């Protein structure tokens, strides 16, 4: 099952199915007067066929295993989401500090002192962007 070429096709078929089923809830219309659901449905069906073709093609090729390292991407995504949520509900300085401290877990070494320095510099850059360039950042 861990075959990159097969999973590639299945992944595209999954996306096609999601959009294809979704497009049924909008009116399809006729060819002369197309509704909002017509175009996505057409594209999704072609994408589904492409996915099937890839699955078929994968059967003749040697399997390549997928290396999906769940740890690093989860840390990165979590730090981005944390940044957005903290900036929304507390303020952006807290968000930046969280981003640095959380994302660093994905690195090969972890140092609190280094993180404090990075966070300090980034907060200073953010302040400069806000005060000097007029970028609207909810820093505090």
């Amino acid at each position, binding site marked *: 099952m861990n075959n*990159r070429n097969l999973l*590639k096709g299945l*992944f*595209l078929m999954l*996306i*096609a199915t999601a*959009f294809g089923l*979704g*497009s049924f809830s*909008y009116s399809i219309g*006729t060819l*002369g007067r*197309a*509704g*909002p*659901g017509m*175009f*996505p449905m057409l*594209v*999704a069906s072609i*994408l589904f066929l*492409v*996915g099937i*073709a*890839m699955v*078929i*093609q994968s*059967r*003749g*090729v040697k399997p390549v295993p*997928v*290396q*999906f*390292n769940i740890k*690093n*991407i989860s840390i*990165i*995504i979590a*730090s*981005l*989401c944390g*940044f*957005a*949520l903290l900036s*929304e509900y507390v303020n952006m300085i807290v968000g*930046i500090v969280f981003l640095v401290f959380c*994302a*660093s877990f*994905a*690195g*090969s*070494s972890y*140092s609190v002192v280094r*993180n404090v320095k*990075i966070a300090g510099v*980034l907060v200073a850059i953010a302040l400069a962007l806000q005060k000097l*360039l007029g*970028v*609207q*950042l909810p820093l505090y």
Partner: protein
Amino acid sequence: MDIISNLLFGFQHALTLHNLLFCAIGCMVGTLIGLLPGMGPLATISLLLPLTYSIPIDGALIMLAGIYYGAQYGDSVSAITMKIPHASSIVACIDGYQMTLKGQTGLALFTAGVSSFIGGSVAIVVLAALAPALGEVALLFGPPDYCALMLLGFVCVSFVTTGSLLGGLGMCMVGVLLGQIGTDVNSGTQRFTLDLPFLADGIGVVSIALGCFGIAEITKNLDSRNERTPFNGQIKLMPTWPEFKRIIPSALRGSAIGSFLGILPGGGPSIAQFAAYAIDKKVSKYRHEIGTGVIEGVAGQAAADEAAARTSFIPLMSIGIPENAVMALMLAAFIIKGVQPGPNMIAEHGELFWGLVASMWIGNCFLLFLNVPMVRYLLSIFRIPYAVLFPSILFFCCIGTYSINNSLQDVLITAGFGLLGYSFLRLDLDPAPLILGFILGPMLEEYFRRSLLLSRGSFTVFFTHPISATLLILIGAFIAWQIVSFYREKPKEPDLELQINEE
């Protein structure tokens, strides 16, 4: 004569102190960011696009052109010194990196800088001469023709980016589908928004670009525990006269090839550099040495890359069709600024068009006289360890996304695309066609629905219009050629053919 007066008009417009300043800033910042691992022109432009929002339109576009060229140069620098290429500098890795190993880093960097200046100067003549003419041709295009043209762009670009027709087309269509998210312009229906109000306006292209390129690339580097080695900064920059003489012929060949390939939809810099390298290998005086680290191997491809980058503005500005993801982002920048690129652009915004053409050349001069001497100092960025660099890059991704709409939800969307982009990366699916599909998708739908409305639902309209019929035949030929070469190239794997035939 027309061309000269047009260009003079452009230079007058571009040579104001403000615009020169914007161009210099763009070039500099572009190079700095382009130097960062995993940051090609595409990521750089998407990162710096918000910087241009508060600048008047002509300055903003000139700055973007500066960023683009700066980023391309920064890219070739990281390719030559560390073998970290991006789309526009793959070939620079071959001979450029060999030159670094021979201790000729400075010479390679200088060659790349000078050759791209030559390539750029040749291409500007082509651009000035051809763009208005192509603009008139574009007026002949009706909705079905545009539809076919976009399909052709899809097919060509899918070849270039992955080499695999299926994968590229699939990703294009994923992009088209993602472009469907938001409010339908014809009926006002909200499509695929999951009842989330912030999706009603659709997804920003910057979120997709940063997620699929920036964040996915950072994670990939982290996965492979990629630590940058410190750079020692000892490089000799100026070549001797015989070395300089070797640059010229190769750079001129590269410029000609690049200018031509840049005009074709789907050509663009990445094929141009390969073509120029291949031709140098056939006809150059030093052809036997190419591949072991010689000047010709760097000069030809750099000139072709630059020339193609420049002439690829022709399809964007005269027809309004971007031919690759970088051009698609430039198109987004035009639209944000309220300028619809297309046949009317030269007539309506003449000063903008010629100003941009002139400022591209000025940007090239800046590149030569500012960046090439400065590059040894810029390289000191690699003394910063990656553990410090990557949280900072993430921070800039966040700020970049946020400042477009002042919306924190956009950061969440970017994070989502980071996950999607990482999945694509691990599944070996190239996200570049996705961006293209995302930009072209809504336009394709618009023209598709309009053509069918005009023809009362009959598909024959695509075949009765001469332009669209020709383009569709071209698409058919492209696909047939791809299938034929697919089977020709793989005589060693008979199982694959058999398998497909059996299915």
